[in-house]
């Protein structure tokens, strides 16, 4: 049998295949069974891939989550299904239109058209002491984004980040890029786990980290 999945996430059968699933309004035409569970496509979702690869993320079921890089809301729709208050930050207006449709049907999903590199533009909205910062931003300076958003995490909270090598540097070897990013992250985080997601997403690295206790400011 597989590792225990967090509350709110199950393996269900869709068209003869067993897939991750959460329960909530369908968003992107994904299959949904009679009990309202909708398939979570690990090929479209970094977080879904992490769960398929059995990373131990520790979701409890009513966690407060800050999701950076929400895009059209594909992944964050599943997060809102199983988590507690979910703050979704996206920079580009076009995908945010879709994110708004996702948020309409989810009272615990709070969409924000903001720049994840400038947390002061939403620290008056997003509450402190969150259990998770989930990050999937295809921009340069992914470590900087994570460090600047550390301020929202509870001391025992976690960073769950999907790092994209090509966003940092299109030409460098991904291993070198990941190594640099991890070094930068260590300025404010203690890395607890890393895993290549290449089975689902080329040149991506999943990183799980905890905020460092020293120097409370991010």
């Amino acid at each position, binding site marked *: 049998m597989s590792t225990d999945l967090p509350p709110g996430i199950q393996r269900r059968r869709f068209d003869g295949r067993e897939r991750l699933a959460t329960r909530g309004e369908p968003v992107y035409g994904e299959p949904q069974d009679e009990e309202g569970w909708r398939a979570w496509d690990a090929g479209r979702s970094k977080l879904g891939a992490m769960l398929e690869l059995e990373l131990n993320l520790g979701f409890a079921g009513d966690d407060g989550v800050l999701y950076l890089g929400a895009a059209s809301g594909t992944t964050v729709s599943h997060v809102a299904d199983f988590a507690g*208050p979910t703050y979704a930050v996206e920079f580009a*207006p*076009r995908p*945010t*239109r879709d*994110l*708004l449709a996702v*948020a*309409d049907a989810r*009272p*615990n*999903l*709070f*969409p*924000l*058209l903001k720049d994840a590199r400038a947390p*002061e*533009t939403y*620290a*008056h*909205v*997003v*509450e*402190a*002491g969150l259990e998770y910062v989930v990050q999937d931003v295809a921009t340069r300076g992914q470590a900087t984004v994570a460090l600047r958003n*550390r*301020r*929202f*995490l509870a*001391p025992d909270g976690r960073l769950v980040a999907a790092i994209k090598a090509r966003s940092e540097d299109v030409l460098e070897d991904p291993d070198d890029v990941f190594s640099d990013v991890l070094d930068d992250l260590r300025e404010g985080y203690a890395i607890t786990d890393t895993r290549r997601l290449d089975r689902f997403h080329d040149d991506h690295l999943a990183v799980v980290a905890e*905020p460092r206790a020293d120097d*409370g*400011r*991010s």
Partner: protein
Amino acid sequence: MSGQNPGDSGWFRYGDPNDAESAATAITERTAEQPQNWPAEAVRAGFVEDEDEYYDALHDATVRATREAVQERETATEQQLQYTIAAMDDAERTANEIAERVVEWAGSLADSRSEGEGRAPDIPGGVDGARAVAAWTPETPAEERVVSLAERAVDLDAERAELRSFVESQAPAVAPNLAEMAGPVLAARLLSLAGGLESLAKKPAGTVQVLGAEDALFAHLRGRGSSPKHGVIFTHEHVRGTHPDNRGSAARALAGKLAIAARIDHYAGEFRQSVHDDLADRMATIRDREVGE
């Protein structure tokens, strides 16, 4: 770790959580360095009765604020594209006007210039002529002035090129399907002529076909551009590159798909390969008619 920053206030302190408009404004415009336990504080300060009420208010406020912010960003981006293409046309027009004056003036000076053994070659027209004159080493005060003026024309033409590149980079963000189908510059012109993406999306194909017909008419009369019957879309390769007998059909087909592309861009905002494939099929049919004839 959330530190204590006495200056930071939660969004609800700036806007009445029950007044959707001021709540949305607070979400969009205010800032804070450090987050706090906003739900608890909002209850404690009496803005809401309990945390459930807080999250309901937060949901309403963030959805509204984000919806307005999306519209404003998209309108601003569209508006920037219109400014850019208008500026590009200004730069092109002024570059040509100044170049025309340069070529005429320099022509009167060219004969007196010492060109070594040979006669000075003729100065080409337009910006190319200005480029040639700008390369002169001036020998008289009049030549200094005409060379300097020539440099102004060359600079304006360079600006035109930069602005064109900027249009090419911006148009897909505003209207991805339109930009792909018409090309970014023609897409930006159609948007300008229609007065925006929403307005363009609401026009029937027949109107899209003749957008810019007056401009095209004037350009045609000045010797640039083709017959004005079909508006600016006539400059598209699908029309220009078609046998004159079939240009009407080609223009109608293109206008029809452009109208659909604009609607997809306005209502869905995403790239859809199908409409481009459809257009390719229609054009292939029209082209086949030419081969058979």
